[in-house]
Structure formats: C-alpha cells, structure tokens
C-alpha cells in the first residue's frame, strides 16, 4: 500500500464548497406532479373507509390512492429479518398503505398527487379517514402485556426478534465473583437525522418503456430490485440514480413505503411525480430506543470475569428497512474489546406504536458501548480505581489478537496503546490534578470520562440486500484517464476520492486522471451501496484488483512498444517507462490508443482488453451459521478510545464539553484527512446522543420532536476543538488491510461524555439515562442529596 496513503483533495470538494452540488431537491422536472401523504393523527387505530371526495374536488388534484386500492396495484414491502430470530415462518410482509391497522402516528394512510406541493398538502388535509382509535402501546412493557394487540399477524406477542449471545457461563462465574455490580442504562429514542431528508422523483419514459427514479438513497441497486418486484416490472426496466446525498448515516436505506408509492403514481399518471420528505416526516423515523440492565463481576483489582446483560429495544412499528436488525448487532458486539470469557446477553426487539426504525451510524454498536462502558465505570467507582486503569486491566492485549468470541473474531490492533495515546492527547493527568484542586462548593464541577469503543464494520448480512462483497469495473481511455464504475455510493464521505487514489496508484496515474461513477444502476455494476463503512474496504479493493489486472496488461503492451521486458516497466504520473532508461516512455493515452488500434494485431501486443471487472469480499466471516450455529457477520473490527472532560453546572444541570480526545484505529488508511473527518463527524453525533437528541412522544402517541427546535442537534459552538490521533493496525483479512472508518466515535465519545458527567456529579449507582438533559442531571443530583440526608 506504499505510495497510496495521502491527503488527496476531494474530487468533488469544489462542488460542495461552491454550492453547485445538485441534490435531489434541486431538481423539479417540467410537468412534474407532487405527492403529499395523508398521515394518521392516531398512534394506534383501526381504519375503515377513506373518503377522498372533497380532496378530489380541489382544483389541481390528480389522484388520491388509499390502502384498499393500493393493495391491488403494488406489491408488499418485505422485511429481510432472519427467521431464526423472528420465529415466524417465511418473510414478514407489510402493505405499502395500511388496510386495517394504524401502527404509529404519522403512518401514511393515503397518497395525494397534485399539480403543486401546497395543493397536494392542502388536499391531503381534506381526505376523511374513518379512524377507530385504540390505546397506544408506547413502550416495551405495554406492547408485551399478555392482552396487547398484535401489531403484525405473524408476531402475536409483538416481540419482533429475540436472541441470546453466550460465551462461557456468565451465571456461574458471577456467583463466584468477589464483587458484583448491577446497573441500568436507558437510551431514549433518537435517529440519524441527515440534514437532507429522503425523497424521490419518478418518471415514466414512454419511449424507452422504462421507469427512471432519482432517489436520495444509499442503495440504488437494492432500491431498484425492490421497486421492480413491487411494481411488477423487469429489474432492467427500472433505472435508479442516486444524486449526491446530503448525508445518509443509515437513514436512507430502502424499505419504507414512500418511494414505491411515488413510483406507482408516476406509472399510473404517466407524469413525473416527486416527493421530498419534510423535517417533521423525517423525525418520525427512529434508530435507537434501548433499555439495558446488567451485572458485572470482578475481583479486587478490577479485573472483570463475567458480564450478563438484558437488552430490550423498542423498534417502533415494523418496517422493511435494515433498522430493526440493529438490536441483534448490539447483542453480538458484547463484550467489545475486553478480555471477558463469560458473557451472556439476552436481547429482544419489540414492536410498539412509535414510528419505524431505519439504520443509524453506530448500527446498535453504540448501545453496546454505552452499556459496557457504564459497567466498567461502575467497577471503577465500586473499587475506587481510576476508570482508565480499569480499562487497561481488562482490554485485550495485541498479542491476544486475533481473538474469537461466539459472534466475532477481533482482528488486529493495540487497544492498551490506543488508551495511552488518548490519555496523553487529553492531558489526562492534568485534568485529574485540576479536578483534585477544585473546591467542592463551586457551582461548576469538572468531570473526566474514558471509553473504549469497538466498531465491527463491513457487515455481510447474507439473505439481505446488505452484502459484504462489491464489484468494480475500471475502464481506460485514450485521454489517459481511468473511469471506475463502482457499486458503492458516497453519502458525502468522500469514498470516491479514496477509490480514485487506489486506482491512480495502481495504474501510475495522477488522481485527477481518475473518474469515479457511483449511484447509477445503468452505469455501475450491482452493489450494495453505502453502509457499514465498507466503501473502501470492499469497493476500493475491487477497483484496486481490477486496476491491478489493467496495470499488468498496460505494462506488457508498453514493454512491447518500448522493446523491453514487462518487469522493466515502471508506471508513474501517467507514463509507462523503462526503469533502466526512463527516456524510453509512453503516456497512458497513446498506450491505450495503441492497444485499441493494434492490439492482437501487432506481434507481441495483447488483446485490446481495456476494461476489467472484479468482485471482492473480505475474509473473516461466517455469514451463514456453521455446524455449531456460529454466525459472524463482521469481517473487520475498528476501535477507538475517547477521553472527555466536562463542566457540569450543578445549579442548572447543564453540561459543557470542555475537552474531547480520541484515538482511532481502522487499519490501513488511504486518505488520513477523510478518515479524520469521519471521526470528527462521529464524535459530534456521539455528543448529540449523550446530551441532546431525543424523539419524544405525548402520552397519546403523538410525536413531539417535530423540528430542529424540538429535536436538538449539537452545533459547532457546542463542541470543543477535537484532539484526534490515529493508530494503524492493518487487518490481516482484507485485501488492502483497511477496516471500516465511518462509525467509530459515536458510541465512544457518547460513553466518555456520559462517564465524565457522572464523574463530575459523583453519581453512584443511579441508572444512566441518556440524553443527559439538564432535568435528568438535576434529578440524579437530587436523588443522592436525599440519600445523604437520611
């Protein structure tokens, strides 16, 4: 990989900076019609007739479609959840529009199409629906009561999935442990909330007899396959284009009804039809909502011997996105990077009358991190040990890697070294000294937190659209350029730049001579798009291998033309040269031209073979359970260590993050600037998770967090200047040694901030309840004041 690693500027950076990037919402085709959804005001109800008479009487209204009619016209959504976990026979399916039961407030009930967006919205308000409201089930307890109304005919108890992750015998080991600490973590509902919401524009091309769909999606090929099945079109007659995304973070996986319904209306009306999600609509989607209780056992030195966890996830209404699988990933990620032989995690994903889940950066692993780190903080407090020291005593050492658990094979790294580096970056000793010197009556209290986060990446989820392999085509032209057609997409991360760097290095081209084509099902090979931080690990490696084949071919041709042998040929800066006589050289353009015009004709010159397609998938997977039932869906294991210092105002409960340091190891790095940018973004999200972000509901089940004044995101002034460092421990199991780079930091920074707040206010065994809003911090303080005066 020598010579590839560099801070190459982003290929599309100038477009973003100039504001000339054309997002989905920037396009309104001529003659376009607009969709608005009639959405249920009730969280739980039975529906009768839908009366669209007054809506259809409005000028400019073109069509109204309800569930009963839609059922005849469009196929169901299919949830790709493993039967072993759901206990259901066959795949779970859902109609695009409900015909019987409303399962959450905001669920689409009917589609209205009109000449303008405002007429469509106005007409949607005129559609009369016969709702018979039922009591909403707004938490796991309510939804799992014996008489709870089933939210899906195939799942009578409302438990969507359940499982046990087990290593050794946690129960027996806990009984023997000198110390057992019990704790509780509650993570309120939050989501990934990219600034750009979802949306799509569907156009029926009558001349070509094809459906063109522009969609803000992470998985254009997956969306195409779904749309073809649901709309009963051949897959080849559906063309999906994903324009540049304004963030995705897991929020833009297919599996929700709006995109197929918008396409259906375009097919029926033979006009372009457009839908762009509003902010209130996008905040209907969730991605986290967990409650965990745990027991952790350790000896007098803080060495942990066993951990036992009960994890309940409230996944809201069932949907066909990959979102609901996240609690299974959370379960499988225990005990992260700690050397704990006896582990038992009992997890459940339960359906309630909140909105459905889509994916979110962290993908369940951030919940694991919060639980494990809370447990280690408890151990430190119980034994009056430094929390950093407790981590050091329990983290796996580098000589123990690869390390195998029942669900993971941790690949490579030096966890204790990353911890030391992070402590140094944070000036940990200075922080602790400052903390000791503080007077206890001060209104603001300094707290310090430390957290280790393991981020398994590159999921190969066999049986779904989210597979671990990728295909790339590299094509050469007479301008001396290479074009990469790749199935991975860039949600704004810059993966295209890293892929171009790899291909440029392999072919001896300047990065600027490489074009990367993404997000177009007509132009790119089939691929799973962007998820699980695998764009470079898989898409980059496939392109690297294809370019390697081309390089050998070009070197052979150059050798013939320059009268040398292939092993004497070197390639750099767009030229193929004879190593011993650099004056003998040929630029790539003329070399390609020679192959095109003389290939297979001129003696010694090979076939005009200027386009190579390769498919690549990493090792270190057990994607289908082996004979013992072991399943390992992640091939790489990135990790990071985070140190946070906070000032907590004990009179108002507000927290100010004063310092954040993080050391991240995601294996081989192609572009350090892009990888660091990923870490920065993840840390900001972790801060939101720890302190601000929460989708709240009224008792009636109506969502309360409907805009960015009611769903608070961190802004730049909330963040301290981040101190970040990188360690590089290449994966022995991937072509390039790379691991996923995009998720590390969400759970780790959140856990470090939470640990710091609890350190500042001297929390003992009170439950962790995030986000740590001022009211919750004050309640925690009060609970201990009451205890102290007793």
């Amino acid at each position, binding site marked *: 990989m020598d010579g590839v690693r560099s801070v190459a500027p982003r290929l599309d950076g100038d477009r973003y900076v100039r504001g000339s990037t054309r997002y989905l919402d920037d396009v309104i085709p001529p003659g376009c019609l607009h969709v608005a959804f009639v959405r249920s005001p009730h969280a739980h109800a039975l529906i009768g007739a839908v009366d669209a008479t*007054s809506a259809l009487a*409005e*000028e*400019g209204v073109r069509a109204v479609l309800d569930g009963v009619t839609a059922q005849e016209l469009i196929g169901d959504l299919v949830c790709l959840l493993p039967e072993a976990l759901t206990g259901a026979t066959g795949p779970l399916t859902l109609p695009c529009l409900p015909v019987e039961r409303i399962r959450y407030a905001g669920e689409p009930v009917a589609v209205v199409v009109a000449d303008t967006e*405002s*007429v469509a*919205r*106005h*007409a949607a*308000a*005129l559609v009369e629906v016969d709702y018979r409201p039922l009591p909403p089930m707004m938490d796991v307890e309510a939804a799992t009561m014996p008489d709870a109304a089933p939210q899906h005919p195939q799942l009578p108890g409302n438990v969507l999935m359940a499982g046990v992750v087990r290593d050794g015998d946690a129960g027996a080991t806990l009984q023997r442990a000198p110390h057992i600490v019990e704790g509780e973590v509650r993570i309120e509902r939050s989501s990934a909330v990219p600034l750009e919401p979802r949306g799509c524009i569907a156009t029926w091309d009558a001349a070509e007899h094809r459906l063109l769909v522009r969609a803000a999606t992470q998985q254009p090929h997956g969306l195409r396959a779904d749309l073809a099945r649901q709309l009963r079109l051949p897959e080849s007659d559906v063309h999906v284009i994903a324009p540049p995304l304004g963030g995705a973070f897991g929020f833009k996986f297919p599996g929700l009804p709006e995109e197929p319904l918008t396409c259906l209306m375009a097919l029926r009306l033979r006009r372009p039809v457009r839908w762009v999600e*509003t*902010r*209130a609509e996008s905040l209907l989607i969730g991605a986290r909502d967990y409650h965990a209780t745990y027991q952790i056992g350790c000896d007098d030195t803080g060495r942990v011997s066993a951990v036992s966890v009960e994890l309940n996830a409230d996944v809201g209404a069932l949907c066909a996105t990959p979102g609901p699988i996240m609690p299974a990933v959370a379960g499988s990620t225990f005990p992260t990077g700690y050397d704990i032989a006896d582990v038992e995690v009992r997890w459940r994903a339960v359906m309630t009358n909140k909105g459905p889940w889509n994916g979110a950066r962290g993908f369940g692993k951030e919940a694991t991190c919060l639980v494990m780190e809370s447990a280690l903080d408890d151990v430190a407090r119980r034994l009056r040990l430094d929390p950093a020291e407790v981590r050091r005593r329990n983290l796996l050492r580098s000589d123990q890697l690869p390390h195998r658990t029942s669900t993971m094979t941790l690949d490579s790294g030096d966890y204790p070294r990353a911890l030391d580096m992070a402590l140094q970056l944070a000036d940990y000793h200075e922080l602790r000294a400052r903390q000791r010197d503080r007077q206890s*009556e*001060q*209104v*603001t209290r300094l707290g310090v937190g430390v957290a280790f986060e393991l981020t398994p990446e590159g999921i190969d989820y066999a049986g779904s659209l989210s597979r671990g392999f990728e295909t790339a085509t590299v094509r050469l032209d007479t301008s001396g350029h290479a074009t990469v057609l790749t199935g991975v997409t860039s949600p704004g991360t810059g993966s295209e730049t890293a892929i171009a760097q790899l291909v440029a290095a392999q072919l001896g081209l300047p990065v600027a001579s490489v074009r990367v084509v993404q997000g177009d099902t007509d132009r790119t090979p089939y691929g799973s798009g962007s998820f699980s931080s695998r764009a470079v690990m898989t898409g980059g490696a496939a392109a690297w291998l294809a370019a390697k084949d081309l390089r050998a071919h070009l070197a052979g041709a150059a050798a013939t033309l320059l009268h040398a042998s292939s092993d004497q040929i070197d390639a750099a800066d767009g030229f193929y040269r004879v190593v011993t006589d650099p004056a003998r050289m040929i630029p790539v353009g003329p070399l390609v031209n020679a192959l095109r015009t003389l290939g297979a004709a001129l003696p010694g010159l090979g076939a005009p073979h200027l386009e190579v397609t390769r498919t690549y998938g990493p090792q270190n997977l057990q994607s289908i359970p082996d004979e013992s039932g072991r399943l390992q869906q992640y091939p790489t294991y990135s990790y990071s260590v985070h140190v946070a210092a906070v000032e907590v105002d004990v*009179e*108002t*409960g*507000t927290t100010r993050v004063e310092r954040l340091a993080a050391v991240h190891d995601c294996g081989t790095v192609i572009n350090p600037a892009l990888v660091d940018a990923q870490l920065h973004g993840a840390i900001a999200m972790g801060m939101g998770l720890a*302190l*601000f972000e929460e989708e*709240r509901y009224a008792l009636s089940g109506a969502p*309360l*967090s409907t*805009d*960015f*004044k*009611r769903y*608070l*995101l*961190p*802004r*730049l*002034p*909330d963040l301290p200047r981040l101190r970040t460092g990188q360690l590089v421990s290449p994966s022995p199991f991937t072509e390039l040694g790379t691991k996923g780079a995009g998720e590390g930091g969400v759970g780790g920074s959140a856990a470090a901030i939470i640990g710091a707040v609890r350190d500042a206010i001297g929390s003992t065994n009170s439950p962790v309840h995030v986000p740590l*809003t*001022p*009211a919750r911090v*004050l309640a925690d303080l009060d609970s201990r004041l009451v205890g102290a005066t007793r």
Partner: protein
Amino acid sequence: MTQAFTRTRYHAPATLGEALALLTDDPDVTVIGGGTIVMAASAGVPRTAALLDLHRIPGLAEIQQGVTTTLGATTTYTRLLTAPAAPPLLRRIAGGITGGPQIRNQGTIGGSACYANPASDIPAGLVALDATMVVDRQEGQRRVPARDFFAEPFRTDLQAGELLTAIEIPTPPPATRWGHAKLKHGESSWPIAVAVARIDRRPDGRIASASVTLGAAVPTPLTIALDLPEHLTELDRDHRRLIAAAVDRAVEQWWSDALADDVHRRRVGPVIAARAVAAALPNGHRT
C-alpha cells in the same frame, strides 16, 4: 376545514399609511417582522391568509438617540449589534440570539416583541429597560409600557388594526448597572430562562434600588423588586439563596414547553435571576 385552497396574499406597502389601511381593511393579515411566521407557514401550519411585509416603509428600521433612544420596529439584531446608538443591554442580548448571521440579519426587535413567545430573549429585555411600545393605527398613535404590552403567551396588547412601529428606551442614570444571564440547552435551544438585573446606586455608592426581570421561564416577563444590602458588591451563597427565594415567591406560574417543563424552570429560573444580579455587581462575575 373544507375551505377551498387559496394562495396566501402578500402586501408590501411603501408607506405607513397604506400599511395601517391594510391592517384595518384585512382582518386576516399577519405582519412579517423577522419572518418566523413565514417559516412556520411554509411548513403548512398555521395557514396565513395574508402577509404584510414592512420592509419598504421608510424609517422603520432606524435608531434615533436622544433623551430616549427610539428603535424602529424592524431594527434587526445585526443593527443592534453594530449600531453605536443601540442600548448596550440590547446589544448583549442580540449577541446571544440562537442562530447565525442569516437569523441576525432577518430577525427584528419588533417582530420578536409582537410574537411574544415566552421562550425568547427580547421581551424581558424591553421590560427591564422600562421601554415604551409605540403603537400606530389609522386614527392615531398610542404608547404602551412594555410591562403591559406582553399580555399573555403569544399575545400582546396590540388591537385589530394596530401596528408596532417603534420602541422607546429611556436613558438610565449613569450609576445604573445592568446584569444579564441566560440559560439554554445547547446552541440550538431556545432560551429556558433569561434574566436582567438592574441596580441603581446613590451618589455615595449605596444601593438605592434593585430589581430583576425574569423572562423565558415565565409566561410573560416579570420584574421583581429586590431588597439588597446597601453596600453589597458581590453575592455570597446566602445572598444568592435569598434572591432565588424572593424570585420563587414572586412567580405565580412557571412556563412549560417542549424543551423544559414548569418544574425544571422553577428550579433554574431563580438561579439565573441570581446570576443576573451578580453580574450587575462590581465583583459579581463568577466562573
């Protein structure tokens, strides 16, 4: 419910007279100050029948300094931050408004006052400064003290056909000291509590009178007179406790909204009030 879809009407009159006539003739008209109402309307709710844009009317965005400082109703936060004539307390408040340059360029002091959102910065500032609201209607003009202007949450004393055109701020005596404190949940939050303290001293330096005006934590701004020791220069823990207790006694009802309920505001409102008082004292600034 089944009204026909109509486009929102838009008026941008060039004179105050035309604006007042429109307000009289069209009872459904909504005046645009900074445009919060337009942003809400673009999301579909509430539907607004007609909008009245004031930006063409000359003189409405001017600041005039005299015995009193007169701020035109459409004076923006940016103007408050940059105009030398702007009262220093309002400049400080404008600097803490949530949002970037676009919000500061667009948001106006009159718009914020007329919106009368309890969880906002401007109303308490105007009440603390003992401002007078200048209200025009076709028949003439009237003046309303700011403390009477904020009638209840999201409702002012403005009557049908009336327009807020200016705000008059009296110049305080040179020995008056102000203190400002504000609490919010992170940068994107609206204010949870704001407080402005005013301390007037006699020529010999003894405290003559003290008060604190609380906003955001209460439905409408509330000024609370404080009995401070004459020679007070900084607050110790007991003073803070006494001030907080006085504030707690004076407030009949605490405000509650999506970001903080009344229980939380009752907890933090008195703290912020005490911090404002501390900031108005010579040695009051604490870390």
